[in-house]
């Protein structure tokens, strides 16, 4: 891949600026560049070039000094994100430095960030689901939050568009609550999953258990290789087999010759021109030189990730917008949502002891939402619903360590795989609450002297009622499916663990109650677009990244049309 244009460019004026290079920023860059706009992408962290900067991608445990373990210094560096349990010696360099980028938890909130080219597109779970008609109608129907200004039919062509380029594997089911994507061949369920699927679908009419729909290539696409089943995704995939900005959208943007990629660019604010009523550009601090630099552009796409985008907007004050750019409604920073997480059940599975699998599948099972999807499935215990992820596998070291045995026979026995275990864990939709919010904290500044965020959010009655149901349903399904020693669990995680933070600059029909319009433009600053998770008006119960991709491609198309018409 050709090098990105990262030279200190004397040119400070572009057609478009994209803030952030993660999943949505990569799409914004690709679409705008391909439509002929000279585009500057501002990235807070370093370049991570595909595949040469995936330094740990091919290391075995014994190649790592501490076999994957983290030192106290590394734990301190990631003292927030370490709570997630996802960071290892092999991936810690893709997680942001929590010491240099503090945030304040008014109530407990886990905020996981990826400060590098590609952002969290290097780290995401790749679970990829379309939202449904009922998701876009949910607020209007039950009166929580404000109505989405768009419907499924508005986004459907853009789902199709991004899916064909990103590459999504999965199985079509024709369910109204989980519309099918354009699929590459699905990955395979293992023996135990196939067995449990049959039992759940037999005993619980209306419930389905499928292989996860994922942004992993199961056959080559556009020069990218297919998944090699190494399950080392978060180190960066040398084959480009999963969707990341680094392997997929940024190379496409770069191929146009229209992309300038600027790393180490700490965005301070978006500049507002009182005379034109438009944004004029972006002010950054160079993270290496501490120099303040201004870049001008006709349009600006905010894709810094949900909370970082809102942080930039809150910090973009002017005479016209003393409370943050586009904040006429007072909703900027409000209505923060995430999915509930790690509530479910697990247990051991008898039988199949002579069966195994080969390959390390970076995917599991999915049980689509089955509550409140029609009259028959309606419950008065909670609004909306939840889905499950999970999987079956043969247990490893912790099971072996728990056996009350030692010695030669024991050692020989643990050379064989442990018993099968199966688990499911729910992801519940969270309602948009005005008082779940973030706001600027000027007392606590980051390494570059910028105000940071305070986060004040919590799950409420409706989410807790769903978690209760998740655990009950999970235990019931596993027991009926013949799983033994079933343990229900609820780790009572605070928001943020789902890493699906959404809202805080929501789309809406009415400028008095929302920040963005139906094409992701700030109502009152039409040349600023927000197409990351900040724009979300509700949060469904399915993983959001595919919807960010589709919204971004749609908004970029609209932006260029409006530019041509000289409307912005």
């Amino acid at each position: 891949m050709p090098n990105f244009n990262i030279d200190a460019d004397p040119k400070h004026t572009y057609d478009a600026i994209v803030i952030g290079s993660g999943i949505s920023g990569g799409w914004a860059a690709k679409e705008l560049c391909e439509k002929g706009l000279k585009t500057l992408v501002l990235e807070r962290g370093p370049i991570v070039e595909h595949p040469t900067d995936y330094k740990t991608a091919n290391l075995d445990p014994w190649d790592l000094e501490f076999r994957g373990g983290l030192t106290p210094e590394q734990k301190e560096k990631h003292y927030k994100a370490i709570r997630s349990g996802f960071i290892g010696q092999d991936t810690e360099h893709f997680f942001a430095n929590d010491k240099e980028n503090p945030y304040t938890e008014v109530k407990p909130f886990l905020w996981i960030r990826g400060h590098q080219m590609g952002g969290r597109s290097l780290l995401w779970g790749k679970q990829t689901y379309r939202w449904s008609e009922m998701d876009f109608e949910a607020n209007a129907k039950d009166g929580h939050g404000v109505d989405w200004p768009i419907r499924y039919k508005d986004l459907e062509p853009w789902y199709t568009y991004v899916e064909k380029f990103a590459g999504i594997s999965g199985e079509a089911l024709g369910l109204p609550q989980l519309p099918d994507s354009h699929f590459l061949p699905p990955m395979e369920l293992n023996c135990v999953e196939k067995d449990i699927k049959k039992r759940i679908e037999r005993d619980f009419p209306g419930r389905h258990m499928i292989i996860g729909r994922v942004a992993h290539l199961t056959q080559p696409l556009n020069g990218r290789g297919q998944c090699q089943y190494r399950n080392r995704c978060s180190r960066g995939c040398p084959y480009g087999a999963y969707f990341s900005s680094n392997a997929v959208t940024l190379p496409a943007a770069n191929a146009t010759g229209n992309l300038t990629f600027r790393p180490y660019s700490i965005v301070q604010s978006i500049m507002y021109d009182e005379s034109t009523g438009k944004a004029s550009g972006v002010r950054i601090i160079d993270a290496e030189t501490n120099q303040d630099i201004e870049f001008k552009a006709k349009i600006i796409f905010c894709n810094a990730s949900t909370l970082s985008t809102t942080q930039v907007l809150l910090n973009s004050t002017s005479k016209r917008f003393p409370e943050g750019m586009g904040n006429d409604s007072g909703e900027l920073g409000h209505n923060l949502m995430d999915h509930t997480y790690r509530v479910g059940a697990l247990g051991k599975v008898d039988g199949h002891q002579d069966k195994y699998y080969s390959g390390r599948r970076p995917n599991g099972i999915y049980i689509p939402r089955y509550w409140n999807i029609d009259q028959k499935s309606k419950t008065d215990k909670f609004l909306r619903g939840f889905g499950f992820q999970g999987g079956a596998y043969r247990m490893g070291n912790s099971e072996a360590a728990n056996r009350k045995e030692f010695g030669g026979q024991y050692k020989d026995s643990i050379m064989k795989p442990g018993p099968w275990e199966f688990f499911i864990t729910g992801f519940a939709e969270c309602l948009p609450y005005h008082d779940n919010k973030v706001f600027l904290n000027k007392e606590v500044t980051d390494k570059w002297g910028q105000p940071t965020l305070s986060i004040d959010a919590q799950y409420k009655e409706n989410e807790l009622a769903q978690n209760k149901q998740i655990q009950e349903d999970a235990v019931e399904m596993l027991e009926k499916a013949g799983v033994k020693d079933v343990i229900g669990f609820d780790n009572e995680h605070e928001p943020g663990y789902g890493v699906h933070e959404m809202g805080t600059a929501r789309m809406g029909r009415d400028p008095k109650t929302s920040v963005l319009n139906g094409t992701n433009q700030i109502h009152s600053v039409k040349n600023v677009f927000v197409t990351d998770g900040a724009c979300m008006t509700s949060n469904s119960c399915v993983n959001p990244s595919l919807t960010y991709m589709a919204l971004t491609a749609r908004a970029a198309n609209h932006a260029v049309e409006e530019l041509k018409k000289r409307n912005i």
Partner: protein
Amino acid sequence: MDRRKALKFTGSMAAAAVAGPSLLSLLQSCKNETRIDWHPVFLTIDEAALVSKIVDMILPRTETPGALDVKTDIFIDKVYANLYDAEAQEHVRKEIEKFDQDCISDFGDSLVNLSESDQIKVLQRAEENSGQFGSGVWGTTVGRPEPVGFYRSLKSTALWGYFTSQEIGENVLSYDPVPGAYHGCIPLSDVGNKWSL
């Protein structure tokens, strides 16, 4: 595919057998008759001798290398030295001390000096008394199980070090760094030992 039947066991065990004690740096314990052939970083000689003895009893040499053959005890010392913070280091040192004291008060001597049958009794008791790990999902434990005791924790670290050693990972377990495909339901006999990665 039956690659595990021919064990490519040519690594550290054979090397150790050839080298013999005279070529190794022998460190004499101050209070025990035991000695270890490596320089601990965090552990004292006595503590290292105890840790080595325990992991050797958990994972002895059979037809496949034992824990000591692949330097699991050295790895454990490295973990304590480099991955434990000061508080955790102090804690593990106290636990080792307590393990040793319990051994002396109940069996009359440190583990390394006991008869084999008493050594087995000590570990059997530790298996009963050191708790169990809770189940985990995606990197964290579910529920809120009691923390495990020293022995269980040591056993777990020993398994980690043993199975992630190159000798075991590449030559004893089934090693396939680039599987290329996923097959969800195959006979275990096609694979043999469990996958190392």
